[in-house]
């Protein structure tokens, strides 16, 4: 079957993104120093354009002989990725301009490459493009994490290389493991198409392959025991990057995991289920307990992210369309809440990459609305009503209960209470402590806009989640029914 131009239609958005990336690269060459800031706006315009286009362009249907399958599922993920990208760009504008004025082009280029990987991945139905797009997402992140080099003029970023190296090394190892696992899977099933793999006979070697594949992917989302890079990297990397880092690989990882687990391995899940449960319990425990004693907010958020992954894995674990849909919704909610928190941190401590809790002291006195926004984000992360996080947790629990895992509901709910302790610790600093300085906070308009968008997302979806919820459920159903 020869590829035709028609095969590119489902991928038109991703291609646009890729072309946009090259456009940014080209423009960068012609922009004089001091004017590079425009690149950020260009990227933002590009992302928003593609996002808008996603509502008008029909990108459904198979492409390249079923290697790619466009549909509600892929579209939903694309939009999540584009939102994350747009928000990150908006929040990075000032940061990048201030810290890396000469290297702005590369920053946005890497971001766009990463996003391209993210948007392509969910529709992919073959392990070769799957791993390619996954790495397309992954490799630029390592660079971004180490983007603040030692010679930065503020001279305070010596942790950045460490953060980047840790992310990179563990990432590389996990890629190698995944590759090895996928090679076994291919060998045992004789195919690379996910649907075809599903028909393979279960053999020990296939099991080993599946397990290694999963282990590699689990690293990206940061599920225990593949989580250890997360807190270190979060603490050391530039805040806007961390914000992106906290959602992008998770989104891709879950998209990939869903594809592998629920399509390729759907017939042979049995040995994996117990492994998954172990990982869920461990993630919830380790993430929440180790977040408790942290004094660095970013580090704490890293651990809390590990716990959040535990909840998301519950949705995946149920394997039902309902559960996967709720995972999608959870991720959406997590995205706005988590980005929001990091953006607030960026406002509070724009020069440092580690943010001690005490730096938030009296935030609500210094900037009342910022404090309120922070509170909403934290409550959302903790799963408190009228913030989107509550619905997310609630629906995950619903899915778990429906799948007969009552104990997981109880356990998850209990752990949510533990999480409240450290989230409230941050809120406590912001609301109950006297301000450390009387210095007024400079909130750049771009960053403020990003925070407002996040806040609107958290509150809006918290008050009226129905449309998002129903889309997520529909997407998941389409995915599991093989319609992409």
């Amino acid at each position, binding site marked *: 079957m020869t590829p035709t131009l028609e095969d590119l239609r489902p991928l038109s958005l991703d291609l646009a993104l890729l072309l946009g990336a090259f456009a940014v690269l080209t423009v960068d060459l012609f922009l004089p120093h001091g004017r590079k800031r425009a690149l950020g706006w260009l990227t933002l315009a590009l992302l928003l354009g593609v996002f808008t286009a996603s509502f008008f362009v029909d990108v459904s249907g198979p492409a390249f002989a079923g290697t790619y399958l466009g549909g509600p599922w892929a579209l939903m993920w694309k939009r999540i990725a584009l939102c994350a990208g747009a928000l990150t760009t908006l929040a990075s504008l000032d940061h990048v301009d201030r810290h890396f004025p000469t290297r702005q082009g590369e920053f946005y280029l890497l971001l766009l490459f990463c996003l391209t990987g993210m948007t392509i991945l969910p529709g992919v139905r073959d392990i070769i493009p799957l791993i390619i797009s996954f790495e397309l997402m992954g490799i630029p992140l390592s660079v971004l994490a180490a983007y603040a080099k030692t010679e930065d003029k503020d001279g305070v970023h010596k942790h950045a290389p460490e953060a980047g190296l840790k992310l990179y090394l563990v990432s590389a190892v996990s890629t190698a493991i995944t590759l090895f696992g996928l090679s076994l899977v291919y060998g045992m099933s004789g195919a690379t198409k996910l649907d075809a793999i599903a028909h393979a006979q279960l053999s020990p070697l296939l099991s080993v392959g599946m397990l290694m594949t999963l282990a590699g992917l689990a690293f990206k989302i940061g599920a225990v025991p593949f989580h250890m890079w997360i807190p270190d990297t979060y603490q050391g990397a530039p805040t806007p990057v961390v914000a992106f880092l906290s959602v992008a690989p998770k989104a891709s990882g879950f998209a990939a995991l869903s594809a592998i687990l629920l399509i390729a391995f759907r017939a042979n899940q049995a040995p994996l289920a117990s492994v998954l449960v172990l990982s869920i319990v461990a993630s919830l425990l380790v993430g929440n307990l180790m977040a408790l004693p942290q004094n660095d907010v970013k580090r704490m958020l890293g651990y809390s992210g590990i716990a959040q992954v535990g909840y998301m894995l519950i949705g995946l674990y149920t394997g039902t369309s309902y559960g996967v849909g709720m995972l999608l919704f959870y991720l959406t909610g997590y995205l706005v809440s988590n980005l929001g928190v990091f953006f607030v941190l960026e406002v509070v401590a724009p020069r440092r990459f580690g943010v001690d809790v005490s730096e938030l002291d009296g935030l609500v006195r210094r900037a009342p609305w910022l404090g309120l926004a922070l509170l909403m984000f934290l409550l959302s992360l903790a799963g408190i009503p009228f913030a989107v996080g509550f619905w997310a947790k*609630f629906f995950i629990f*619903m899915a778990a209960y429906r799948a007969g895992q009552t104990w997981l509901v109880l356990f998850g709910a209990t752990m949510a209470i533990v999480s*409240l302790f450290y989230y409230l610790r941050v809120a406590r600093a912001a609301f109950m402590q006297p301000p450390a300085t009387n210095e007024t906070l400079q909130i750049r308009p771009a960053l403020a806009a990003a925070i407002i968008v996040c806040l609107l997302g958290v509150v809006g979806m918290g008050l009226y989640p129905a449309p998002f919820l129903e889309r997520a459920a529909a997407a998941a159903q389409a995915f599991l029914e093989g319609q992409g």
Partner: protein
Amino acid sequence: MGNFAHAHLLSIIVAAPAVAALVVLLLPESERLAIRMAALFGALCSLAGSIEVLRTYDTAQAGLQRMERYALVPSMGIDLSLAVDGWGVSLLLLTGIIITAGVFASFTLEERPKEFFALLLVLVAGVFGVFVAQDIFVFFLFYEVAVLPMYLLIGVWGSHGKVEAHGPFAFIWKRFDVGGREYAAMKLTLMLLVGSAAILVVIIAMYFAAGGTSFDLTHLANTKFPRELQLWAFPLLWLGFGSLAGVFPFHTWSPDGHAAAPTAVSMLHAGVLMKLGAFGVIRIGMMLLPEGARYWAPWVGGIAVINVLYGALSAMSQKDLKYIIAYSSVSHMGVVMLGAATLTVDGWNGAIYQMFAHGMMTGLFFALVGLIYGRAHTRLIPRMGGFAKDMPWVAGFFVLAGLSSLGLPGLAGFVAEFLVFMGAWQSAHSWWAIPGIVGAWVTAVYVLNASRTIFFGTGPSDEFHELRDAHGTEWVALWGLSLCLMLFGSYPRLILDFIHIATNEYLPKVALVADQLAVLAR
């Protein structure tokens, strides 16, 4: 406009404080009077609405009235549906009274009034919502909204009081700032949310057991859940909601929380919020899971009896004024739970009426305690004495509240306690009435002893030079609550008739089978 208001009265009652909160947030910090007036206006709107609901409730028709329904998540059957029954009518009124009194009592609050009133109003919106929600999920949402602002309200505006480290866990005290306001706020939030977690599990379980189509309370109440589910789910609901109602041993947030909380917050929390817990146990737990309720009723009643006596005795041993009142709340909420556990008409009437009566009484108490603390700058009773000289009205109101709490006829507390004891005697466990009655006497001992030490005798000593009687808006709160106590104590039918209607409607679904079973057993 009038028609609109009439048709959406319940929404307006719930929304008024929330809107007021928003307005307060938008007002500049310097406009203190405007902030206060906005808060007061929100509270008064709700109060007026509550009175209107009470006035227009059709007792002949009974049942749920003023139904409003808006789809929230249609695919899962979550509706924002509001309606009011006989219980709701009375508890709405209570909430309206307490929030109005609360706003008056802290009208002159100086420290960050803007955020304070905003949070207070949000909290109250949640409380109103719980009492009218007819969708269990929305019920839960409002419940959480009512509970959470407490964290900041206590943590920011609270007061400190040290607790000495003793006992086998003394080493932990050194790690925690026990008695501090942040400790109290955190403890309260975490303990109550553990309860919420349990509730959530049961809500999900019930939803699916009822077909997974609707969270509607009536729908769930008409569903006969499998016995096995009822037996494990009921205790979860009981302890989950019970943690807010101060059920032993999950009451320990209450003394610290109430002691640390600022005046209006204590008033609302002890006055209304703790009722949410008890209301949840009855309205959700007992009515949706009748078999579970019957099976566990001996436990509920037994623990409630412990609550009554244990709370009263603990209160007796306290030296800190706020702790006394807090423990007395634990004791009185035991009366509510006891009434609920009796599964008799009188018991349930009494339970709901006790919520109502105790709400106003404890509201009055905390208003007074706040006032005393504000002038004396100490909460330690042994240091006080002879305060009646400088604050005779405060003394009088305090004794009045005390008399209501010990169940003096003519004040609201008596009606409630008497009904509960009557219900207890009619129940399958007649002996419950005895500790209940004894508890009322122990209350007399500690409440009056406290008032004697604080107000009577010689004094006050020189260190208390700022003592003066209530003034300004404080009068409104004190008089309002006192007159309510007397009014509802001498003419209880004003409220009790409504409660009775709802009880008569609901109880047979829960308890009649119990009687039949008892007959069979014989």
